């Protein structure tokens, strides 16, 4: 992975991270958006989309409720996509087993990253003094806000750059040591990862007809997408609209 690639991804990571932590929360930082962006920059949009889809489902349960800060899905999406593409041992589309190997490494980094995130937020208390210390308090508050944006930008930049720079070579070497017999298991693990997010989400979704809706979703999906062979955005959105209608009708019927 060239230093230019590392620098490019790190600069972009800062911007994506600012969306998550500081400005707007437009959700450019969600894995399903962030990973394809990194993939596109690295020259393989579709691998980015695959990583984004799996991590989106894996992190379905990460809720930043109150002052709690969940593990960073954005950082995981950026690092996994960049390393999977930038340090890939083969030319072209990387093997899913390799992407899984990268993800396992990135997963190990999530706890230290969370600790660093908490540390930054604790140290950010200095911004209150910055806001108050200016004779013109409006100017002080504005300065504190922009400094906060800078801090969060630097946090993402400073985490992404060394991780990409230092771990690319080590990951490739260790992957080379793996027995080929382990690779199918890694591929299956990647395919099963979304099950963790879905299971976690299911524990938080209370609905009296929940099982019925889930089974109905599976049956309709098999009929529409496999039976009739439809695909594309239109049928998927139509399916969601029909399901929304069914949910409302069910609610009305229960009320009667």
């Amino acid at each position: 992975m060239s230093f230019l690639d590392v620098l490019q991804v790190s600069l972009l990571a800062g911007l994506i991270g600012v969306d998550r932590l500081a400005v707007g929360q437009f959700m450019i930082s969600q894995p399903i958006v962030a990973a394809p962006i990194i993939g596109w920059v690295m020259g393989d949009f579709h691998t980015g989309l695959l990583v984004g889809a799996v991590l989106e489902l894996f992190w379905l349960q990460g809720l930043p409720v109150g002052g709690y800060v969940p593990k960073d899905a954005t950082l995981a999406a950026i690092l996994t996509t960049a390393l999977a593409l930038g340090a890939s041992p083969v030319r072209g589309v990387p093997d899913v087993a390799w992407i899984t190997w990268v993800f396992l490494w990135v997963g190990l980094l999530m706890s230290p990253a969370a600790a660093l995130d908490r540390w930054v937020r604790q140290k950010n208390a200095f911004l209150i003094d910055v806001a108050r210390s200016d004779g013109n308090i409006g100017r002080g508050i504005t300065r504190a806000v922009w400094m906060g944006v800078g801090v969060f930008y630097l946090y993402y930049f400073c985490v992404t750059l060394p991780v990409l720079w230092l771990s690319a070579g080590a990951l490739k070497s260790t992957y080379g040591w793996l027995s080929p017999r382990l690779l199918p298991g890694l591929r299956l693990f990647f395919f099963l990862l979304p099950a963790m997010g879905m299971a976690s989400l299911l524990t938080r979704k209370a609905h009296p007809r929940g099982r019925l809706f889930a089974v109905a979703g599976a049956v309709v999906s098999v009929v529409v997408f496999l039976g009739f062979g439809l695909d594309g955005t239109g049928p998927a959105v139509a399916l969601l609209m029909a399901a929304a209608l069914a949910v409302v009708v069910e609610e009305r019927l229960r009320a009667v």
Partner: protein
Amino acid sequence: MQAVGRSLFIQSAWNYENFQGVGFGYALVPLMKETASQDAPDPDLAARHLKSFNTNPYMVGMILGGVLRLEERLASGQGSVEDVENFKSSLMGAFGALGDSFVWGGLRPLLGLLAVMLAVLSGAVAPLVFLVCYNGIVLWLRIAGVRNGYAYGAELIQYLKTINLQRKIYRMNGLTLFMIGALLPLWALQVRPEVPVFFAGLLALLVMVIYLLWKAERKGVPMLLQAAALLLVAQLLAQTGWFSF
């Protein structure tokens, strides 16, 4: 609109001491300038709003609108400082909980599932659809929030009753469960669509794994342990050759 624009920065100086306090103060800077006697913003008003504040970032517009209304009343000699502070402190928790359930717990997972379904079915369009749908809804929350917060003022809770977010959360829960069911066959199909028996096996495996993880989650098994167990199971299954690809 200025308040809506500034509310985008509510998290910018987030810290464990006053959470969104600085960001909330930033949204009120134009008001501080209006109520100032000279060019410099009103320091008392600023000091009051730099205190600890935390709510859902998409719901802050409603509280901001209400505070703008109450502060204007205060500047014209009506109401008291306590009214403003009580308004803020009593609503931030309730709005935070409601916003977290609506946006983080409902909207984001639902649209995430839709986006993954689109990624499977039509590829590149998925992130774009996700961004348009998500931001369309939260932009409405932000703009209508400030507008109605200002219009309702201290009676803001009445407005919340009219939009009935609880019912929307309930409906989104139903839809999310439907989407999880709808996504499973498509996900199983991603692996090897040309062998129908293999597809059925993968679908059954996915359902079984979700069920077991759901049980583990309910019993409080840590995520790391769940992931380690899943990795082990995946290796064992792959070694049998049934699920090797």
